[in-house]
């Protein structure tokens, strides 16, 4: 009686096993790689906005500082987008006939808000506070990238927890200042800092710094 399987089946079985192994490993690795791609992080995705606002022109040509429009960054958790009257502050005088600014004028006279597309977005359970970062000297471009070179704003960093921890773990190295030194709020009466207990978690990496 002939054998059940031909001689080439040995090789076929082994190849099949190797392929299954590779597929299994890929199935495990693929999601880990995928979540780091721009498909998920939305990095480098420039969105169309209701107004063709060009940061290059406003920042580089006109020399307008970030905080002129994003006023609240210094005092609120949210940097905020400028209200229409801020745009109109200048554009009632300059380019006041430009068709590009038609939506702005429409908004201003109708009282309906401009609906901008959010570019930099964090999960709902992350409590990021602009004001404290600005006050501690974290540059805008650290998280937002070189906005002054962008025709349409896009994300340049993933803004995931990995990214946040990168600085929160080592602000001195990453941002050039000694966070421990500067956290006067956390200091004890005699200027000591919480004793080193082997837990390298600091005020900056403790969970409720960002999650409440």
């Amino acid at each position, binding site marked *: 009686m002939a054998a059940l399987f031909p*001689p080439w089946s040995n090789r076929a079985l082994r190849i099949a096993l190797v392929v299954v192994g590779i597929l299994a490993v890929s199935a495990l690795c693929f999601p880990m790689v995928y979540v780091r791609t721009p498909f998920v992080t939305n990095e480098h995705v420039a969105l169309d906005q209701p107004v063709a606002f060009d940061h290059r022109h406003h920042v580089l040509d006109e020399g307008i500082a970030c905080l002129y429009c994003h006023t609240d960054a210094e005092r609120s958790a949210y940097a905020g987008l400028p209200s229409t009257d801020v745009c109109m502050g200048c554009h009632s005088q300059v380019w006041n006939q430009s068709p590009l600014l038609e939506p702005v004028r429409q908004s201003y006279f109708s009282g309906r808000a401009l609906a901008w597309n959010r570019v930099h977005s964090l999960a709902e359970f992350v409590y990021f506070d602009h004001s404290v970062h600005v006050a501690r000297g974290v540059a805008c471009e650290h998280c937002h990238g070189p906005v002054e070179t962008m025709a349409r704003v896009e994300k340049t960093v993933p803004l995931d927890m990995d990214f946040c921890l990168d600085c929160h773990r080592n602000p001195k190295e990453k941002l050039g200042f000694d966070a421990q030194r500067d956290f006067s709020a956390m200091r004890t009466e005699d200027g000591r800092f919480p004793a080193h207990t082997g837990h390298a978690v600091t005020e900056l990496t403790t969970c409720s710094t960002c999650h409440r």
Partner: protein
Amino acid sequence: MAESLIAEFGDDAALARAIDRVRELGVRELDAHTPYSTELVRDALGAPPSRLSTAVLVGGALGAAAAYGLEWYLVAHLYPLNVGGRPPHFPLGFVPIAFEMGVLFASGTAFVGALFLGRLVRLWAPVFEVPGFEHASRDTFWLTLKLEPGSANAGSVERVSAELAALGALSVRELPGGTA
């Protein structure tokens, strides 16, 4: 060109006798195919004990060490949080997983090792072409041997076949594809 033979026996004792006899004839490359592990055949063939145990020890030790190392690296080194006031490096808590991973890796090594050292995971082998070989897993005992043409004491194929038949072989055939 070496020539291989395969002989079928009705019980393990006959197979063991045949092994002893062909050994006397100077045949070195021998293997048996039996429906169950039998002491007679094992002793007659006299193969050295399996080296699998060493591999399993290494596999288990590696698994346990890797698990413990990973626990230390992640929990005590990368993000050492204050959990219930326990120290970041907490051997008491790290041991169970290290132990389990040791067992897992050791078992995996034993299983995979047995398959590969036993030359399994091959669907085709020359013996499968032998008519009646399906009895090898049910009720008959088979001997395969390879005759080296150059070796002095080895007789001819015919001689060995005759000897085997005389020892009670139910059938003796040439094995075209070798003994593997």
